[in-house]
């Protein structure tokens, strides 16, 4: 399974990963539209990203969520009817939505954020 692995102990909370992600998928620099979410804290930052556990896949009523050959959960927007049930069942809060968006969005382990990270705090791994 291909998955994004966050390393909070290395993270410097520069938020470059969020910019890279939202720019790639939504063409804007907006952390609210990023599939990876960095929340600063007094210890290491919290790095929230999908672990491809597939809990959302079972909840989807239209089979818009499926698992590709790399073990990554993908959203088929042509099948998605925007009910957001997947957002509610995600155990890690990694299926995202934004007010007014038709469909939810999530990390597909594309790795664009790893290239933007100056601290090597995110890796693509195959488990």
């Amino acid at each position: 399974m291909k998955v994004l692995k966050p390393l909070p102990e290395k993270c410097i909370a520069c938020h470059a990963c969020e910019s890279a992600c939202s720019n790639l998928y939504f063409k804007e620099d907006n952390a609210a539209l990023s599939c990876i979410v960095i929340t600063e804290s007094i210890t290491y930052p919290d790095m929230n990203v999908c672990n491809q556990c597939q809990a959302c896949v079972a909840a989807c009523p239209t089979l818009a969520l499926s698992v590709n050959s790399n073990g990554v959960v993908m959203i088929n927007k042509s099948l998605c009817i925007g009910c957001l049930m997947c957002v509610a069942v995600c155990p890690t809060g990694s299926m995202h939505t934004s007010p007014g968006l038709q469909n939810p969005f999530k990390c597909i382990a594309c790795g664009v954020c790893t290239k933007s990270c100056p601290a090597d705090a995110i890796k693509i791994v195959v488990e």
Partner: protein
Amino acid sequence: MNRKLIAEFTYDLAPVKRGYNKRTLYINVGTKEIKAKPVSDMMIDKFVGGKGFDMYLMWHGVKDDTTWNSPENEICIAFGPLCGNTSYPGSGKSIVTTISPLTGIPVDCNVGGHFGPYTKFSGWDALELQGKADEEVIVFIDGDKGTVQIFSAPDEEINSHIFAEELIKEFADSPDKHQFVSVVSTGNAADHVNITCLNFSFWDKRRKVARLKQAGRGGTGTVFRDKKIKAMVVKYSGLKADTNNPVDLPTLQQTGLKLHKEIEAGDSTQCRMHEVGTAHLMEVMNDYDLLPIRNFKYGQAPEAIGLHSREFTALFTQGVADGCWYGCSLSCCKAVDNFKPRTGPYKGQSVCVDGPEYETAAGCGSNIGVFDPKDVVEINFYCDTYGVDTISFGTSTAFVMECYENGILDKQKTGGLELTWGNADTALELLHQMARGEGFGLTVGKGVRAMKAIFAQEYGADPDFLQDIGMEAKGLEYSQYMSKESLAQQGGYTLALKGPQHDEAWLIFMDMVNNHIPTFKDKAEALHYFPMFRTWFGLQGLCKLPWNDIEPANNTETDEPAKVPEHVANYVDIYKAITGKPMDKYELIRQSERVYNFQKVFCMRMGKGRRIDDVPPYRAVGPVTEEEYLSRSERYDKQLQDKLGVDPSGKSTAEKMQILRSYREDQYQQLIDAVYERKGWTPAGVPTLEHLHKIGMDLPEVLDVVKRYL
């Protein structure tokens, strides 16, 4: 299938605006007229949508003397402004109305499945079916192209589990698009008996079968077949998150997401809808002496352990998104996969069975003495596919079993059927007879009211006894809760406009268990508020279950936990977010009150709907037989002592029963007095002109009918 095109109507496709299309579809299968009718602002203001539109259209479609099988009787199916949104759980309901063959007055059914939302998004706020076809037909609405067509229907198989699937495959554009087609159908029994239903399908993509949800009550399937309609089919492929065109999608989404999360967090410890649907109630009802046993004689039985919800959990396929419309995370419509019936024409075949839900498990299980869950599943399967209402079937079968027990019926009269308690084989044979149109099944399929008359007239049975044990009011069979110990629920059942169904009010815990409504005034207020609140779901195209079958974690700390205030606020929010119209919790009740009183007057127009019709059988009020009294003698003796000041010692059971009966029947009448006053009706049960003016339901046609009775 080689079909002949009989009639065709083309219309312009246009997007829904803020929950409304502002037009309805009229189809006369007799004259073959198909047309669009505009929705006026008055209709929206006074009737809102859903059941309100159904009632308005039907009122103007029928005459005072219309009966269920008159050509002008209509089947109306409407959806409501909130129907079809994919954000808030329970938003895919259709409301079906017709003049019922069981009651002679309007019946309304709230049903899931995809037909309603797809028909709405095809361009229609309601659908009106009238006339009788001169040959078998199906009606096809193509919401992608903008056509309505009537086709000939030479199809041999009309039982729903097969027919719905065949039609979905026939009308879908390709095998990967079955989910865009939905079917309304019934089954063979609807050609022969009155206790029938309509099945509304949705294509289950995971199971790859047509699932069936029932517009169950009042014989809708019989009217459908009387019109020679075999099915209605709709196709719509464009569903998105904003197809209902809400004015404020973010608020709608956030309100829905809040409830999704509440369900995810709370369902497994509250009602377990995900796991077992409404069948979770089985042991709860049995524990509280509320589960109907042997024609509502008792509320509890040791054998009911056999129908414990864990038995159904084990039969239902787990971990599947079982919503009857998209976005319903409550996911209560469970199914038994790969079930193999042991009787009937589908014996040994592998089928998917929707349910059993609580009503079916109680009605076709404990109430007829059947305690094997697989027997219940088989009865459920055949009821659905033959188009039989499981509630009326259960209550009617329980009635004949008690008649058999009392010698009113015997094997000679039943054509050899042994109608003993718990005889699942006989119950199934009754169903097969209904489908084949033969035997004693035809008598049972007439319903309890008709059977009471037949057994009295033809078999010389005591009509008073039959009245006492025959669990029907207004001609409709009771649904499956014991109301003997809850005066408020006795009213909830008997005052329900269409007949004794629990969808207007379910007050047993409030009244009997928690004693939150001790006075007549309290009970009357509850019998005003809850029927009005629940009516609102039917106006909007919503399901009741996400209102109080999941509760916020802090609900018990609120002022009025029985109303679930946070969820009421959700409904206000999503109504405003979709329609853009003002709304608060008071206007919500006023919307319902207008339609509720309109339906009430509609019943009066058709010859029922007054106090003389709000009469419960005594079985719903107290113990009819000595065995019932003796089974709970401690309770009843205590009531005689505490409430009436009567010392039960030294009195015979018959004497005590009579005293208790007089007391309970008097209590019921006092309750009705209080409720009518609260509802703005005269002691005869007629809405006053002042009340109709006050609530804004003073249309001339309404006042004309009311004046006949004042």
